[in-house]
């Protein structure tokens, strides 16, 4: 806008100077016209005084009138004081020029009248009178002297006339001087004739005529000199002054033109400079605004970007910058606040989760510690209690052996009960000890042939009813820790035999299949089965289902489950009442790899 104003201002100024330039140009044209007209005026005036033609005179007067009109018009239209002064100078000279020309006209007309009318008339008159004198002299037979004087007079007069006429054609003072001498000579000769009475009177008349001829001739000379002086000196002087002032006008207009051109140049330079300043200022302003915008926008955006990055990384930002702004940045900031709030909630949830996790870990650790303590206690208790139990059983045995015959039957029975209970107590303690030992006994992994392992166990199992043990398919050979696998199989197979109610028709079927990275072993029997409602309970400690008369502590499956799970496997039971039981447990294909992964 500023540049626009500068441009408008510059254009306005240029328009003004253009008008001024036009005025100066007009003025220069007027000055040139004045100068040209004055020169033309002088030329016409010179032609007029040479020719004496009225048409030439009128052309001078017309041109002069035109010049007066032009100058007066210029004075009326001129506002510049200096120019006005010069025009007035010209105006002052024009009337003088006209006055002098009028005088020249007058002199020229006088001379015309004298030379063309009066002088010839007088010359004719003189000629006639001299002719008469000549005739009288011839008739009177005057002396040769008189006739010679007459001849000399006529000759002198004729010469004078010729000189004067030549002068009027080509003015030269010597001609005038010569003419005057001739006239004087003529008069002298005429005076000679006056001595003779017959011609005396006529000579007197001729003398007067010659004097008049001289007067008219010299007046014509004077008139000629007069208008020549007027035209060549006075009017030329006036014209020269007018030309000088018209030239001065031209120089002034040129000066004005130069000044205007300088002003135009100055204006252009000024506009250029101002435009440059404007552009520079605009650029600076633009840079400033840009910088300001950058300062206003970039830092907030950078701050917001940083905030978003922090928010994206899950950080919670309490103080979201630029929230109070009412622009897009403010909207972005408020959006960031939403993210921040979500992050805060997430953090809180995570904190809660972590707290719960820590609590869980602590509980697990406590539980593990409790379990460890319990295992330790169970181990210690089962181990340490075995000795007193063994002592009790030993003492009871000794008493029975030593004093059995002395004791009544009831007491003996009681002793037998004690032995039975102690035995059971030992079994409980053994199982408890085994359970507690699960996972505590570290053994080296070895290459185990599970088929051989099962076969050996079957050979060792107490199988009074001859329950049939069948291995379906092949059992794998793989690297594992033998003892835990052996205990799992032992407990499952012994349970299957022990609780089988089919006598010698009882069947225990052992099979294996490879599932993923594990072997899934199955021990299936055709015993009484276990009701599904007891499936969970059968793996709990000291829980017994089925025939409770069968010897057992209720720890066998608990030990199995603990061993299987301790070594990375799973155990499940499938059974319906009266449909037999199938225990399936998985066992890592490669114990070493399993240990490493764990």
């Amino acid at each position, binding site marked *: 806008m500023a540049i626009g104003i500068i441009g408008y201002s510059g254009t306005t100024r240029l328009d003004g100077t253009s008008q001024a330039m036009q005025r100066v140009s007009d003025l220069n044209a007027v000055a040139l016209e004045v*100068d040209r007209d004055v*020169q033309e005026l*002088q030329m016409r005036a*010179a032609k007029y005084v040479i020719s004496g033609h009225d048409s030439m005179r009128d052309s001078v007067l017309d041109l002069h009138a035109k010049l007066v009109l032009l100058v007066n018009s210029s004075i009326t239209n001129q506002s510049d004081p200096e120019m006005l002064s010069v025009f007035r100078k010209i105006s002052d000279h024009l009337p003088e020029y006209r006055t002098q020309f009028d005088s020249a006209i007058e002199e020229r007309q006088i001379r015309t009248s004298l030379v063309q009318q009066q002088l010839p008339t007088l010359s004719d008159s003189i000629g006639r009178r001299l002719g008469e004198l000549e005739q009288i002299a011839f008739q009177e037979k005057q002396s040769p002297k008189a006739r010679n004087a007459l001849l000399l007079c006529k000759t002198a007069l004729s010469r004078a006339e010729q000189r004067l006429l030549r002068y009027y054609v080509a*003015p*030269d*003072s*010597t001609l005038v*001087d010569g003419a005057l001498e001739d006239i004087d000579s003529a008069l002298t000769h005429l005076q000679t004739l006056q001595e003779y009475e017959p011609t005396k009177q006529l000579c007197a008349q001729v003398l007067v005529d010659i004097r008049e001829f001289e007067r008219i001739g010299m007046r014509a000379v004077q008139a*000629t*000199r007069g208008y*020549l*002086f007027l*035209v*060549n*000196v*006075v009017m*030329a*002087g*006036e*014209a*020269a*002054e007018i*030309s*000088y002032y018209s*030239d001065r006008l031209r120089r002034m207009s040129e000066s004005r033109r130069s000044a205007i051109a300088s002003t135009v140049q100055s204006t252009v330079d000024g506009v250029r400079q101002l435009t440059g300043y404007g552009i520079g200022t605009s650029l600076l302003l633009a840079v400033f605004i840009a910088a300001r915008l950058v300062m206003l926008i970039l830092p907030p955006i950078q701050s917001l970007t940083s905030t978003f990055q922090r928010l994206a990384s899950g950080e919670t930002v309490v103080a979201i910058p630029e929230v109070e702004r009412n622009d897009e940045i403010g909207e972005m900031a408020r959006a960031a606040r939403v993210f921040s709030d979500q992050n805060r909630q997430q953090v809180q949830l995570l904190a809660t989760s972590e707290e719960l996790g820590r609590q869980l870990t602590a509980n697990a650790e406590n539980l593990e510690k409790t379990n460890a303590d319990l295992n330790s206690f169970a181990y210690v208790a089962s181990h340490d209690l075995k000795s007193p139990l063994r002592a009790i059983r030993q003492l009871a045995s000794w008493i029975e052996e030593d004093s059995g015959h002395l004791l009544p039957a009831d007491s003996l029975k009681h002793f037998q009960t004690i032995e039975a209970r102690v035995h059971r107590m030992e079994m409980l303690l053994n199982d408890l000890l085994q359970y507690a030992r699960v996972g505590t006994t570290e053994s080296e992994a070895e290459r185990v042939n599970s088929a051989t392992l099962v076969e050996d166990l079957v050979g060792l199992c107490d199988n009074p009813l001859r329950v049939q043990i069948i291995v379906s398919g092949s059992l794998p050979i793989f690297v594992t820790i033998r003892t835990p696998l052996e205990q799992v199989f032992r407990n499952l197979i012994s349970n299957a035999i022990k609780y089988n109610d089919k006598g010698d028709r009882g069947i225990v079927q052992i099979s294996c299949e490879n599932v993923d990275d594990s072997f899934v072993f199955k021990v299936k029997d055709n015993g009484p089965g276990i009701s599904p409602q007891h499936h969970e309970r059968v793996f709990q400690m000291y829980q017994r289902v089925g025939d409770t008369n069968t010897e057992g502590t209720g720890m066998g499956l608990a030990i199995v489950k603990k061993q299987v799970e301790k070594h990375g496997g799973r155990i499940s039971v499938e059974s319906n009442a009266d449909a037999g039981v199938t225990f399936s447990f998985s066992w890592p294909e490669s114990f070493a790899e399993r240990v490493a992964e764990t």
Partner: protein
Amino acid sequence: MQNDNSIGANETKRISFLPYVHNVDSFGYNAAVVPRGTAYDTESWSWLLDRKFSGKVALVNEPTIGLFDAVLAVQAAGLATFEDIGNLTRSEIDQLFRILVELRKDGHFRGVWSSVPHSVELMSQGDVAIESMFSPAVFELNAKGIDCVYASPKEGYRAWHGVMCLSSATSGANQDAAYEYMNWWLSGWPGAFIARQGYYISNPERSRKLLSADEWDYWYDGKPAQTDLKGTNEDVVVKQGQTRDGGSYEKRFSNIAVWNTVMNTYEYSLSGWNEFLSTG
């Protein structure tokens, strides 16, 4: 006038003209522009053609006067020599105007002046620095505070002597009036009046009693002014202590280069003058 109508030294009762006002003229220059010279020594008619003052030079617009100034200047400047500067031949006129026209073409001349007031105006306005000048203009300029010097050219003055003529055809009351007029001019007062313009009268003793001793001493004897002297319009035209340029009457009239005349080539010179003036 001699009895044979010629002019001669023998005393007769016949006169052709009645002498009265006369002077020796030269050029004036503004000492503020043109460095002041020394009378009869360095001041020269050639200064009129000095290129240093180009555009600031004017001549009187009267060929019978200005032509002499031009001739004296051209000759002093060494641009041409003339056989008789009081009566130039046509070829000399041609030669003179060739020089003048060329100078005018070069813009040497501001122009010509046609009256004493005009000459005063030209110098007082600064249009010219040096110009043909008549005595009254010099003192009028001095009264205006312009240090105009009436040069005393080493080549000599252009002298002139004004005369009064009475036509033989005059008679009766006109003749009486004409004689009264001529007698008035020589009565003393006009002579004293024109003395205060720097002119001289042909019968100065009759005017002397109408001039103060200081005035006489300054105007005629060329002595330093004892007091401020007034001109014809009551303005002080001479400051106390000033000496008239060129000195006394005798001194000035002892340095004449030429007497003004109307040459035989007068008419011929007019066209040359016209050409000179018309040259732009």
